[in-house]
């Protein structure tokens, strides 16, 4: 009884940044695992995009997922983020949050951020506004109508602009940024959501070597605080950041382990690396 009575009172005193904690409060990491996928199958018109896929990601881990085209990498992300519902299998975020029952927005709120293959930012908004909109906050209509940026929130946006090196373009229209800058902006937008788990689909596609280098550093520094799942084709990039690699093939896990072990796995060489 008392806990029920306390709940609204506890909410009363929350600031916007505290609300982030309200959202991820339910994330139970008792077994040190942030994401469990078990026996996931997805079919599109008879084509099995995912076939009994099982995968688990530890809290704070940086995992790379590789695999040839059509291996099911993007579909896997669709399942985790609620865009696609699996035909069979379970997907849990922490111990308790069943991802197959939540909408995209609820999953984002629970603490999963996703970066798309093609940079998806708000092209007609400024860089600042892109970060403002994605920032962790109460995102219901009524709150958004009367939302005002606090100076603390402004500072957080400012820090993010430094981190993604867009502080010279703060009030530029995002559509005018270079491809690499857009990728960074999208990563910045994800981080503004303060996610526990980041899903990054080909984050360095179209980046210069220098940008790729800096992205690798950024991801390595993020691991620990966040968990990251990186889908990438760029093998040089993967070997630079990867601790553990998962190879997908025909909708299932073909091999999993440290990069050098996976690279020498004859099955992996046959389907992917050998070509």
């Amino acid at each position, binding site marked *: 009884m008392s806990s029920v009575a306390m709940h609204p009172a506890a909410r009363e005193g929350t600031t916007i940044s505290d609300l982030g904690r309200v959202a991820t409060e339910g994330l139970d990491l008792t077994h040190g695992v942030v994401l469990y996928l078990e026996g996931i199958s997805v079919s599109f018109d008879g084509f099995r995009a995912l076939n009994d896929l099982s995968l688990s990601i530890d809290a704070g881990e940086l995992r790379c997922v590789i695999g040839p085209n059509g291996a099911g990498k993007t579909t896997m992300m669709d399942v985790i*983020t609620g*865009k696609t519902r699996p035909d069979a299998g379970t997907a849990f975020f922490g111990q308790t949050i069943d991802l197959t029952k939540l*909408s*995209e*927005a*609820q999953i*984002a*709120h629970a603490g999963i*951020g*996703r970066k*798309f293959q093609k940079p*998806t*930012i*708000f*092209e*007609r*908004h*400024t860089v600042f*506004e892109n970060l*403002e*909109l*994605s920032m*962790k906050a109460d*995102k*219901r*209509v009524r709150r*958004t*109508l*009367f*939302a005002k940026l606090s100076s603390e929130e402004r500072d957080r946006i400012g820090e993010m602009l430094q981190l993604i090196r867009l502080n010279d373009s703060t*009030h*530029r*229209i995002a559509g005018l940024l270079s491809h690499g800058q857009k990728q960074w902006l999208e990563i910045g*937008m994800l981080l503004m*959501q303060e996610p526990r788990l980041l899903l990054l689909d080909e984050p360095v596609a179209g980046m210069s070597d220098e940008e790729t280098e800096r992205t690798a550093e950024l991801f390595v520094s993020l691991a620990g605080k966040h968990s990251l799942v990186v889908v990438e084709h760029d093998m040089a990039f993967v070997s630079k950041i990867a601790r553990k690699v998962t190879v997908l093939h025909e909708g299932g896990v073909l091999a999993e382990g440290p990069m050098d072990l996976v690279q020498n796995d004859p099955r992996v060489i046959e389907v992917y690396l050998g070509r």
Partner: protein
Amino acid sequence: MNADHSYRRLYGVRGWTILAAFAAVIFIGFPVFNLAVGPDSTFHISAYWVTLLGKIMCFAIVAIAMDLIWGYAGILSLGHGLFFALGGYAFGMYLMRQIGSDGQYRQPMPDFMVFLDWKEFPWQWFNTDSFLWCAMLVVVVPGVLAYVFGFFAFRSRVKGVYFSIITQALTFAAMLLFFRNATGFGGNNGFTDFRRILDIPIATPQTRMALFAITGATLIGTLLLARWLVTSKFGRVLAAIRDAETRVMFCGYDTLHYKLFVWTLSAVLCGIAGALYVPQVGIINPSEMSPANSIEIAIWVAVGGRGTLAGAALGAGLVNGAKSFFTQAFPEYWLFFLGLLFILVTLFLPQGVLGLISKRKEHA
């Protein structure tokens, strides 16, 4: 495009000045030159112009409502005439009741009911002799219809041209329904021959001017409300939904509620505009629900400039001004002209007339 911070304010000095000038024309200029200056004077503004501008201001409210959902949220409705007509019918019921026994048949029931030999009011007419009840219906009927329709359409993620076609079908279906005598709203004749409003004779210059001024105030209020919405964080989310809805969802916004809110608000604004329109024009019939009417609303906004609000209101004024000229001078060519105008604006003025003006400014 806006790269500075000024868009976070309602309006700058220039915007407020234009708005104040407009208010002065509506609240001072028109009353003085219509009522105080006699018809013999060259400066007299005739009832024709008062009614015409009053009508156009109602359309401007509709255009702003349309711009909110089309220009900002990217949802093209081709059925907004329905919400306008529903507001008009809701208020028209009150005006019909105000006729009392002064109709042609000298009966306490409206003429069309006497003609159909109805002995009592059907259920839709419950309490419609109350002004407040009908004023409530003006807001609630379009609002509830839009909310329910929008909920199912947006929840099923119906988008783009499919959504537009469904809204078009909705208004067409409603028109057929209202054409039937059995629906209880006067069939194809609709409502007309109004005598009084709040027991005051409706056809006097003073009542006409009062309705005109109320419409002007509502227009200004609508513009400021809409402007406040689009300059808030809500407005930025709305524009983000228009440009990249998936990203907005993955940011943690439930886009269904955002779209539903602005869609319902837009319908309610149309209903209010319809209620202001009917007493000024003196008639409401099902042709207001015709698909062509709703398409015309989209043309006003396109001509004025999508996503500018004031431009949408300006577009409603320009197109309807041209319409009243054309339908008198060359009545058979109006639709050709309207079609041509739409094609030319789409091809050469993607940002409408207002876009043209602000482009001039940049070059100067």
